[in-house]
Structure formats: structure tokens, C-alpha cells
């Protein structure tokens, strides 16, 4: 199973079109292996992106250098997945019993 330990989901709040464009530049950098959960949109809805641990530092530096506000929506994706899996397992064993 794919392990997402250390991966974080950043919630980016672009203040204007120029900042949305900056985020779009990130989208094009394949080596960062970014996974946009919510891509840049018309309505300036939050942009949510899963960032592998290896890319975290450079993505945060890039955003901060461009004055783009962000918060950490999910500290560690794998922790949340482990919780989800535990819950599914618990339900299943209850169902079996």
C-alpha cells in the first residue's frame, strides 16, 4: 500500500488572479508530485494540494516568497488514513461478531 507518511495537505488562499497564476506555475512542476485535491478555481475557493514530504520545504518557500497565504489542512495524511482504516476494521469485526 502507498504510504503517505509526512505528506501534508496545504490549503492555499489566493488573494488575487496573479496569485492563482503563481499556484498554477507550481501545478506544472511535475517533479514536485503535487496532487491538487481542489484546483485553482474562478471563485477563489480555497486551493487544496497534497504535498509529498520531499517537496514540502520548497513549496512552502515558494508560497511564502510570493506572499501567498496558506495553512496546513492535514498535518500527516497517513495518520488520517490509519484512523480511517482502523474505523473500517473495527466496524467489520463488530459486524462479523
Amino acid at each position, binding site marked *: *500500500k*502507498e504510504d*503517505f507518511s509526512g505528506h501534508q*495537505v496545504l*490549503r492555499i488562499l489566493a488573494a488575487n488572479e496573479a496569485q492563482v497564476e503563481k499556484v498554477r506555475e507550481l501545478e506544472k512542476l*511535475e517533479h514536485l508530485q503535487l*496532487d*491538487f*485535491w*481542489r*484546483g*485553482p*478555481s*474562478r*471563485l477563489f*475557493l480555497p486551493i*487544496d494540494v*497534497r504535498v509529498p514530504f520531499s517537496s514540502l520545504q520548497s513549496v512552502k518557500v515558494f508560497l511564502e516568497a510570493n506572499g501567498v497565504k496558506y495553512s496546513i*489542512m*492535514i498535518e500527516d*495524511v497517513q495518520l*488520517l*488514513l490509519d484512523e*480511517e482504516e482502523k*474505523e*473500517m476494521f473495527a*466496524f467489520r469485526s463488530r*459486524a462479523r461478531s
Partner: protein
Amino acid sequence: TDTFNYAAYHTLAEINEFIDLLVAENPNLVSKIQIGNSYEGRPLNVLKFSTGGSNRPAIWIDTGIHSREWVTQASGVWFAKKITDDYGQDEKLTAILDSLDIFLEIVTNPDGFAFTHSSNRLWRKTRSISAGSSCVGVDPNRNWDAGFGLSGASSNPCSETYHGKFANSEVEVKSIVDFVNSHGNIKAFISIHSYSQLLLYPYGYTTTQAAHQPELDALAKAAVNNLSSLYGTKYKYGSIITTIYQASGGTVDWTYNSGIKYSYTFELRDTGFYGFLLPARQIIPTAQETWLGLITIMDYTLKHPY
């Protein structure tokens, strides 16, 4: 199916077991149609809810075309049970089913869904092999023959929005296309995704307004108001391209261009900070509120034949 746990996420096998059980419990209302097989050979099962007649006007609902959007398949299971519970009890749904059929495809991308359980919980695409590339899968919501390959999809097989080699290259998409074309009397088509609380209508590949845009917008507004009335979940609505971004090769652009006027995409919860990893405790409230939006669209379809 009364003891089935609707407040938990389930595997593909458990959902298929639920489907067979629901059919067995309701032989006069529910049947299972297999519209094809997925790329890896899994059945593409569609539930048909019908109270008689042949080739009646119908409503299509699908969930799980993006496999990681687990709250949608879970909501689809809840919708199926809701329909069997409410027929004969709820006036609105009974009137709908006395005149229209409902088709519900709960696991529209079974290969991707199985993969989210076995290998990668965040898998979104199909699992087809792209010749010449080490990357797998096509975005099944970019593979339809509506603006296919235009801006708003990627030609890179490694991208999450890869549109595929050609329109309908994905058997999971082609099977629905063939079913809709052969049925020929689908009047509403609702494709359910997550997340970001949106109700969207065509177009996504062009800024050209849909011919029925005022009517689609008014119906979306009514559906969102109804949906929000339950738990206050805030939704936005509008055409795909003006509300979120340009997206080509999308499902409801093709269904609308095929003459299905009431073509909508839902983006369900997350209202908080979980994204695709929405806790199972939110499945039922999400399904309940979405149902109010669905009923609004289905009721309108019944009362506004075309």
C-alpha cells in the same frame, strides 16, 4: 439491508453484496443491470428502480466515477436504500417512480475503487494501461466526447486529469454512453463527485452558455436551497466553467449535448479540513442533504417533461 451499516465505508465486495441483497428484497421494484465490464474485468452494475412499463422516461444518477471520492459511493448506497424505503411512503418519490425509472450506478469506476482499498487510497482515475507510458489510468471525467482534448484536461498520461488517447477510450465511460444511447429516453443525468459543495451544470469546455441556462440555473438554486435547509451546508451553483474552471471532456457536457436537458454534477462535502478523507460519521448527513437536492431535480424533471 436494514442492518447494513450506512455510516461506514465499505469495500467493493460489500457494496456488490448490498446491491444483490436489495434486489432480492425488492423484486417488484429493483433489478440489477450489468452495462459492461471494467478494464480489469469487473462488472459495471447499475440498479434499476422501476414500477412498470417499458422504456419509460428515466433519471440517471452515478457516484464514484473518481474512485477516491468515497463519500459518493457511500451516499449512493444510502440513496438506493432510501428509494426502496420511500416508495409508497413518500408522496414525491412515489409520484416520480410511478412515471419515471431511476438508474443508479454506485461504483462507476470499480477498478479504481478496488485500488483505493488495496494499494492507494488517493487513486482517482481508471486503471487502464497507457501504451508507451509507465503511468496508469485516465481521468474518467475528461474522457467524454464533449470538447474532448481541449484546454481543461491534460495530454500527459501521468497527470490526474489525463484525458486518454481518444474520447470514450475508457470502457467505464463507453459503457454508460452506449447504455444512454440505446435507452434513448433519459431525461435527467446527475453525476456525483466530491468535494467542495457545488452544484454545477454545463458547460465546462466552453464559455458558451447552455441553451437552457436560465432554467438550469433556477433549478440548481432551488435544489441547493433544499439541500442547505437540512444542516445549513453552504453550496454554490453555476456552470462548470464560470464556477470552478475550464474542464473538457466532462460527463454532463456530453449528456447535455446528447439532449438530456437536466444534466448536473454535484460536488458533495467536505465542509471542513478532511477533503477526500471525510470521516464516516459524516456519510449519512451528507447523503441526507444531497437527497433533498436530488429529489428537487427529479421532481422538476417529472413535472417538466420535454
